[in-house]
């Protein structure tokens, strides 16, 4: 497991250019969202938490897909599966993707604050939403990337399967971020975070259990 993690981090480090590209992609989507919503400053400010999560979600389809590129070439996965269990390969990749997406979210925060004039109210709360929310995206996203990468029309398959699945994670992340941005008079933040935590627990365990069927068959 540690060797696998080391391999993933090494891969991520060698693909630094990709990191810069996905960050640029996320920033570009933020600009597009603001152009689609119009120049109303108050409206943009109110939509900022949703835009943050949409930018992370859209950028994640690219990075998740990229995480299996090295494996699908030359049948490298077949060799890997001989020396490590499917679950450990899955968890190493999911963990790397999680860290990457969380980092992407942290970098986007100041950008959001500047672009939409959003006060980063409770920063500790925002940080924990970002950590938990990106964890919710990473587990099902990694499993579906493993599957989509080896099917025809890979770029189409991943969002088609992954978007409907992460709707609960997206809803609760956006709600919790809104409460962190604009204050939480009704004290609902903890509730949304528990929902997000439940989603993460369900899908981190379920995807790990099902990874054998995806990585070993065919």
């Amino acid at each position: 497991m540690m060797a696998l993690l080391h391999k993933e981090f090494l891969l991520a480090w060698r693909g630094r250019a990709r990191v810069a590209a996905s960050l640029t992609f996320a920033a570009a989507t933020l600009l597009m969202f603001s152009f689609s919503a119009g120049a109303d400053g108050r409206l943009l400010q109110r939509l900022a938490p949703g835009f943050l999560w949409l930018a992370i979600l859209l950028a994640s389809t690219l990075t998740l897909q990229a995480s299996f590129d090295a494996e699908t070439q030359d049948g490298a996965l077949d060799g890997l599966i001989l020396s490590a269990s499917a679950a450990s390969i899955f968890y190493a990749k999911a963990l790397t993707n999680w860290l990457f997406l969380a980092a992407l979210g942290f970098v986007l925060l100041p950008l959001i604050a500047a672009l939409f004039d959003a006060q980063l109210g409770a920063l500790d709360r925002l940080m924990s939403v970002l950590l938990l929310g990106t964890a919710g995206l990473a587990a099902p996203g990694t499993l579906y990337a493993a599957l989509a990468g080896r099917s025809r029309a890979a770029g189409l398959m991943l969002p088609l399967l992954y978007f409907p699945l992460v709707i609960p994670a997206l809803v609760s992340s956006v709600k919790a971020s809104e409460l962190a941005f604009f204050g939480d008079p009704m004290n609902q933040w903890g509730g949304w975070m528990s929902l997000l935590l439940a989603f993460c627990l369900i899908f981190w365990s379920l995807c790990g259990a099902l990874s054998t069927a995806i990585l070993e068959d065919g």
Partner: protein
Amino acid sequence: MTRQRVAAAFALVGLGLLSWGSYLGLWVAPPDRYMGDVQRIMYVHVPTAWLALVVFTLAFVYALLFLIRRTWRWDALHEATLEIGVLYTALLCIQGALWGKPTWGVYWAWDPRLTTVAVMLLSFAGILSLRHFLDDPLRRASWSATATILASANVPVVYYSVRWWNSLHQLQSTPKTVNSAMVEPLRINAFGLLALTIALIMIRSWIAEARRRRDLAPPLPEIEA
């Protein structure tokens, strides 16, 4: 020929019950006090909703059985239930929109049950197209079974998160709160659709079986001209 006869019998019984129930629903049952004749769409809408849930539950069970037992029969049934479930949820959304416009004033509302059905439709339609994009039968069977299990596990989570997010749909009525002239066509239609669904699942799974045989069969030798 016997299994074809069984399927045909189920289909005939189903169609017969559906026409009888719809006749009762359209002409015999009284109109609703508040909604008027619009309410009559419930005689197909409610059975469609029930059967869509039954069919997706079956899809989950067949997916699980395939992953445990590794028999092609479960894969064929899984494919059949996926496709019929997607068809039913699509019909359900259309019927709901037709009813919602005159009653709620809008075709669509972000109600938990509506939204959950829409998410189910999207998830399972995605799995259907995944099956189309995988050529290897083993990959197709085992990967789509995995996706079905994930999508099914997600249904209650989606329901609770959307319910918390927003709400408007009617509370369920029970036979006790509804006039018996309204309950009868509903029951008849539900059993009719159940019989028709059984026939459809049987026939669709034979088609899936036959397609897989064709995919796995060795190519025919070329005939020299």
